[in-house]
């Protein structure tokens, strides 16, 4: 039985008709550490009615050396209708993100969004737990903002290779989240320690819902813990995308829905799915 009531393919209407292809202006595009950059855009109101977990599909610039063609999906890291601002936290990996990294204040950037179905925070979920590593922080960060708005308790377990590349700790703290950091360097990021930390939270404060992003290891861990303690959870998934809108059917993943394997589009039925239905890959 599905623990969380989710949209099914038939009744999806993501972004409530608020998806737009718009031109934005770069406010800043600054390195966060050696690998990650934070991009802040001046964006029109039409695209700022966002949900945590939704994403934008970004048309990266073309330069003499970098010529990305398809758009690149990026989770919303921050959004503020008041400030007219949209933020992305991205890792420079290939052609598209290298091109993004060349953007300077005042440059224009075409973005499409907000897209997809974001995270759920049900009314009776008071104690939230999120488990993030690497770029997953970008996806999970707005959940802290929403938790604060809804007056819920949030503990963020942030994992990284070492302390230098731990990101967004202050961001989470400023949004009232409790932060637990674990790193490979300290030997605190292994699965068994994570399990112990989470089990401890469940025993002490209680956990009503768990959120994570990306990794197979974390998915399996939270699936096990969730099944044992009957705690629902959600995961944001990634897949290669072309259209981002649900048209091309390239971004499917398999889900186990009450014993049947179905294929759902990450861009449309997702990117956020129930932890119990997601399948390790």
């Amino acid at each position, binding site marked *: 039985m599905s623990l969380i009531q989710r949209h099914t393919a*038939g009744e999806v*209407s*993501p*972004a409530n*008709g608020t*998806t*737009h*292809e718009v031109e934005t202006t770069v406010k800043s595009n600054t390195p966060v550490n050696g690998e990650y950059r934070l991009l802040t855009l001046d964006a029109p109101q039409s695209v700022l009615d966002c949900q945590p977990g939704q994403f934008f599909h970004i*048309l990266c610039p073309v330069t003499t050396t970098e*010529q*990305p*063609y*398809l*758009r690149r999906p990026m989770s919303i890291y921050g959004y503020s209708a008041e400030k007219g601002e949209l933020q992305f936290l991205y890792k420079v990996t290939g052609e598209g993100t290298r091109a993004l990294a060349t953007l300077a204040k005042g440059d224009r950037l*075409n973005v*499409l969004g907000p897209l997809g179905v974001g995270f759920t925070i049900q009314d009776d979920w008071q104690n939230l737990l999120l488990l993030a590593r690497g770029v997953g922080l970008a996806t999970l960060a707005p959940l802290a903002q929403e938790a604060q708005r809804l007056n819920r308790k949030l503990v963020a377990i942030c994992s990284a290779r070492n302390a230098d590349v731990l990101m967004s700790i202050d961001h989470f703290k400023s949004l009232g989240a409790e932060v637990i950091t674990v790193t490979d360097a300290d030997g605190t990021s292994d699965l068994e320690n994570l399990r112990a930390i989470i089990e401890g939270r469940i025993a002490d404060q209680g956990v009503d819902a768990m959120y994570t992003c990306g990794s197979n290891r974390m998915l399996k861990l939270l699936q096990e813990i969730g099944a044992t303690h009957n705690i629902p959870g959600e995961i944001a998934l990634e*897949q*290669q*995308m*072309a*259209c*981002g*809108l*649900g*048209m*091309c*059917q*390239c*971004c*499917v*993943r398999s889900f186990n829905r009450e014993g049947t394997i179905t*294929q759902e589009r990450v861009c*449309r039925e997702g990117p956020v799915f129930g932890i119990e239905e997601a399948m390790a890959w």
Partner: protein
Amino acid sequence: MVNLSTKIGSLTLANPIMPASGTFSEDLSEVLDLHQLGAHVTKTITAEKRGGNPTPRVCEVRGSMLNSIGIPSKGVQHFIDNTIPFYNAYDVPLVVSISANSADEFARICEQVSVPGVAAIEVNISCPNIEEDGKAFAMRPSTTTAVMEKLRSASDLPLWAKLSPNTGETIEVALAAEEAGADALVVANTLLSMAIDIHTRKPKLGNLMGGLSGPSLKPIALRMAYQCAKSVQIPVIGCGGISTVEDIVEYLIAGATAVQVGTATFINPNIMVTLLGQLETYLETRNIANLSDLVGSVRDEDAADAVVFMETAP
């Protein structure tokens, strides 16, 4: 005021811009006003439910993309119950794309989708013919004739045959389709291609190979559209790599009476409507009253007899 309307056989479209099959769905209505399109062309469906190909199903190549989606399909009944009613809320001709692995199956689904609310059927004959050697129907004139004749007797609706750029016999296949009763040709589908991830040494597509679409395909599909328009009497609908109004004008001059826009919609979801506005302006500023004045206006007199021998260009 310019007249943007165009005739595809018995069917009149308000304007020549429509989506290419597989690059369009109900979902685009979130971004774009679907009323403005010349026609709605649906993703190819098959009679049976199908899962589609393994992921990754797309990858990027220099300035274009490859895909190998594999026609996942909810089956024809789901389509009739859900998709046709959705599009019938619009006053725009609905073109349904179908496919099958054998000529008889193909005829069967053709009959099944010949229902009220469908204005034309696009037959995607670029899929493998499993009764023969697995090559797509549209690879050879003989298999094109065989399948088109069965399709013709299965429906009274206009049939648009969608050709493949993988064949070495474009003109022969086009003539075979016309002869067997096609009402129009859609030129063309994607071109078989490959990309390998040099780090993992694995093919970038789960299915190993896939079809090239986007700007790289344009000069090839334009050549085919031109060859077809020169060879057949039925209308040719240009498709392949269109992303600017100049691209559309080029196809029209080459002889296409309408065009389909595919991959460009992935890059700019609004592009079909943007292009429509630009096309209108283009005609206006050049005092071209009717779109049809542009169609086939290529000035190829000088070189006309070279065409025959230009099967290859070393």
